[in-house]
């Protein structure tokens, strides 16, 4: 179904958190202040790689207005953080490994004094060789950035004999693809408020995508019991994976405890660029072969990921890229090796798509090149080679069977955008064909498409807890509590719609509590396209016991048999039946009255479970996959090299659409983020320093870059026995646009793109020479 306001009917629901956003009333965590608050600032390394010879903070400590200064000597617990591998110093002791490394931090009575005090801290460095190239890091004589060396993680998938098979293939395409250091560029930079409480606890108001994980990490740094810390992690002004790891939390927490006063941290954009995570730049070499009928035979892949100075989730990102560089296709022979390498280039980590973006760009690029080699339509070529619904997953693991792949492939084939493609090919072949709306000859048009099969959840072998709480609270509201965060994706409204669906109540009858470790049970992270599915499954489990309890209570109060009672607007309604149709007669007791009659936790229900995983022992292997197909039409100006996206079609098979406004927003937003990844975004580094430091040179798409049309086609059908409900769609909109655009550029200009962002230079043609080059004007 083409999703839009009209087609959504009553499900098109204003965001529950919307009014406070459009009025500016909403207090983001970085808007908060507290009585007696200090301002925290962090001193970051001057060099991408150096030894610290000496560190003198005395002048800063003695400066008027400075209340606390901290260095590694002030870290009582583990002076390291990292979700998966804690190898990043909260405050560096003797070595710095990137220019975002923290050496000291200051809390002062004004931000100006805090900033000035940083300049009073004297650090003596011994500058070391800066490793900027992962290949240099792999050399034997390269400096070792970590005790175990420069390799964070290796992956390998092999079956059959790809080397031999490639020699016997009728056609082979070999190419090296490379992708940019994309920045999340959330509009709200990292920050928060840290309050030492009178009862000896610490309250942390700071954005993250997994409040409980932050609590664990902060407790580990402070050497505290986790329960002494309360993490409030929502609302968030955008994250996209970038705030999943700790950022300012260690400094805010330590400064607050040392000074005994509330401390506010809020990174400037430049500091955010300098210290924050980025998407892994990857070089992906692919050699792919097929037989004379166009059937894929062998696939040899080598991935080198620049993970930067510290681990964070670099290893799982490489696992994900490895799993996704085979596409949704059938293979006889597979030979994949990946390596994630430490360098002195920033820190690469978790980012929407999680390594899939890079892998899918490369894989789909191969598919287009192979199709062209054998002279087949690129979509028919994919059809020919697509995996079957009962095939095992990419890592030979058992996966949940759906028809999503088939469905998105057919939907794309039938889309008007894709069907226009042939007309463009015809136009390019016949140079003289005069198009009424004819553009100048240096304007070229093309259409391309790509396919994605994207795993959700953290994967096999990784703790992936889920859970939630459903209760009738004291004020008589049906209250759902999850440890998820709202960073814009629309989770709060999605939960509201789920609750209305379940209980036929109104928005006013509902309370939603998220992002507060004191008030919500552990439901896992708001990452990996998992929270919608987990919330839905959690509510399915909680619904029956909850209903039973409150209907029983309604019966006790009213004397009406339970089977004549149901939940509804403002309370419990009596129903009668007429010809199998349920008729709601009247409200017989309010939620408030039922809540008043509650004894203890009579109406509080908790559930705990885990994200569904494959039964096969394949670490990182996924069980639930979502499918998408994307078509894009571009216009290339071969005088300037400018690529303009004209039209985009996204079809996504992710089960029932709960919140259509949120669904459209995630696909459109993911798509435009992918547009930036494809055409303009790159956090450029030279010698370990960022050259791109702010939004003037880091070019995220603006409204003027928006396509004229973007269609979102949701395929909601799932197999009859499917117990998992709606799949998350937070990432899938961002993973397949790049290869669709580069395929379109190929059709428009004859140029194959292997490096992102697309270089304009590569697309510029001298006026008048296009015919000689064999690139036909339209």
């Amino acid at each position: 179904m083409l999703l839009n306001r009209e087609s959504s009917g009553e499900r098109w629901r204003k965001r529950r958190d919307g009014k406070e956003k459009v009025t500016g009333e909403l207090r983001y965590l970085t808007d908060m202040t507290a009585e007696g608050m200090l301002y925290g600032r962090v001193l970051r390394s001057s060099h991408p790689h150096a030894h610290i010879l000496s560190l003198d903070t005395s002048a800063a400590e003695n400066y008027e207005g400075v209340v606390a200064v901290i260095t590694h000597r002030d870290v009582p617990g583990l002076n390291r953080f990292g979700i998966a591998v804690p190898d990043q110093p909260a405050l560096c002791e003797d070595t710095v490994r990137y220019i975002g490394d923290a050496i000291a931090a200051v809390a002062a009575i004004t931000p100006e004094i805090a900033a000035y005090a940083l300049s009073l801290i004297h650090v003596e460095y011994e500058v070391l060789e800066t490793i900027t190239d992962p290949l240099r890091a792999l050399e034997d004589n390269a400096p070792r950035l970590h005790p175990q060396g420069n390799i964070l993680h290796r992956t390998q998938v092999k079956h059959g004999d790809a080397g031999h098979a490639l020699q016997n293939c009728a056609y082979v395409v070999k190419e090296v693809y490379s992708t940019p250091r994309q920045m999340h560029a959330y509009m709200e930079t990292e920050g928060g408020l840290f309050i030492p409480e009178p009862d000896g606890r610490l309250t942390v108001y700071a954005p993250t995508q997994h409040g409980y994980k932050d609590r664990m990490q902060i407790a580990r740094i402070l050497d505290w019991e986790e329960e002494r810390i309360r993490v409030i992690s929502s609302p968030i002004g955008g994250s996209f994976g970038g705030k999943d790891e700790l950022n300012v939390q260690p400094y805010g927490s330590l400064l607050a405890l040392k000074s005994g006063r509330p401390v506010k941290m809020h990174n400037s954009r430049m500091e955010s660029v300098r210290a924050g995570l980025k998407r892994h730049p990857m070089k992906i070499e692919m050699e792919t072969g097929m037989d004379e009928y166009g059937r894929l035979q062998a696939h040899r892949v080598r991935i080198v990921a620049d993970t930067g100075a510290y681990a964070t989730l670099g290893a799982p990102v490489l696992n994900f890229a490895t799993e996704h560089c085979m596409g949704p296709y059938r293979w006889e022979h597979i030979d994949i090796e990946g390596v994630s390498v430490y360098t002195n280039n920033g820190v690469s980590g978790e980012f929407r798509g999680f390594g899939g973006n890079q892998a899918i760009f490369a894989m789909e690029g191969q598919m287009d090149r192979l199709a062209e080699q054998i002279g087949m339509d690129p979509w028919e070529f994919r059809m020919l080679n697509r995996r079957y619904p009962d095939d095992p997953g990419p890592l030979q693991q058992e996966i949940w069977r759906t028809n999503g792949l088939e469905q998105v492939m057919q939907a794309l084939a039938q889309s008007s955008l894709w069907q226009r493609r042939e007309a463009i090919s015809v136009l390019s072949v016949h140079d003289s064909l005069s198009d009424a709306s004819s553009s100048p000859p240096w304007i070229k048009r093309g259409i391309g498409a790509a396919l994605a099969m994207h795993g959700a959840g953290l994967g096999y072998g990784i703790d992936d807890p889920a859970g939630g709480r459903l209760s009738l609270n004291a004020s008589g509201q049906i209250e759902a509590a999850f440890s998820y965060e709202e960073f814009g994706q629309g989770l709060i409204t999605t939960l509201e719609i789920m609750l209305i669906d379940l209980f036929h109540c109104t928005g006013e009858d509902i309370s939603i509590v998220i992002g507060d470790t004191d008030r919500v049970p552990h439901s896992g992270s708001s990452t990996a396209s998992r929270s919608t599915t987990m919330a839905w499954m959690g509510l399915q489990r909680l619904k029956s016991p909850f209903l039973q309890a409150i209907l029983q209570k309604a019966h006790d109060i009213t004397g009406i048999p339970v089977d004549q009672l149901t939940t509804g607007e403002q309370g419990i309604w009596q129903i009668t039946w007429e010809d199998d149709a349920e008729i709601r007669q009247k409200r017989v007791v309010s939620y408030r009255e039922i809540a008043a009659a509650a004894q203890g936790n009579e109406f509080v229900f908790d559930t705990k479970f885990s994200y569904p995983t494959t039964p096969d022992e394949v670490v990182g292997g996924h069980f639930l996959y979502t499918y998408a197909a994307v078509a894009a039409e571009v216009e290339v100006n071969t005088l300037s090299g400018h690529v303009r996206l004209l039209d985009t079609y996204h079809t996504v098979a992710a089960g029932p659409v709960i919140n259509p406004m949120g669904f459209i927003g995630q696909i459109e937003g993911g798509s435009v983020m992918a547009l930036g990844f494809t055409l303009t975004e790159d956090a450029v580094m030279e010698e370990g320093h960022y050259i791109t430091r702010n939004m003037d040179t880091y070019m995220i798409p603006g409204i003027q870059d928006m396509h004229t049309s973007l269609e979102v086609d949701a395929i909601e059908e799932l197999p009859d026995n499917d117990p998992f409900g709606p799949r998350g769609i937070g990432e899938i909109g961002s993973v397949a646009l790049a290869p669709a655009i580069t395929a379109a550029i190929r059709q428009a200009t004859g140029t194959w793109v292997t490096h992102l962002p697309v270089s304009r230079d590569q697309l510029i043609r001298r006026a008048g020479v296009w015919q000689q080059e064999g690139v036909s004007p339209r």
Partner: protein
Amino acid sequence: MKTTSIQWQAVINGTVREIEIPPSRRLLDILREDLDLTGTKISCEIGRCGACMVLIDGEPMNSCLMMAYQCEGTEITTIEGLHGETEDALHPIQEAFLEEGGFQCGYCTPGMIISTKALLDRLPQPEEQEIKEGLCGNLCRCTGYGGIMRAVESAADKCAQRSSLIPAVDS
């Protein structure tokens, strides 16, 4: 670190505000820190992203680039100053953003709505290209701008309907 302060005055959201501040203090800090008007957001601080957009005498300006002395005595409207026919009611632009899904995380939204207000005050029925020009100083990382375009188009219609309901008054 000592700077001479001035007695600074401006009309902010219809109310005269007077405070003692250094003349070079950024309007953004005056709003967020001194007056606790945190609806105006802070993001790039170089005038590129528009998160801190306010109206100064009706013109959209990045408050991160505006110093106190430059806007002294002006009339300043922030997101908190926007409302419908009553103070509690939403402005039609705010309604449109809410109905069309013109935001997600909401951090760019105050600036986006302020720029839309300036645009529609100048061009009540903008063409697509005019909307893009009017909002090209505002970045949004969440929506991909689709919802924003739909919201602005709808806001223009709403504003037109409202003004047609107000009877013309002879001057």
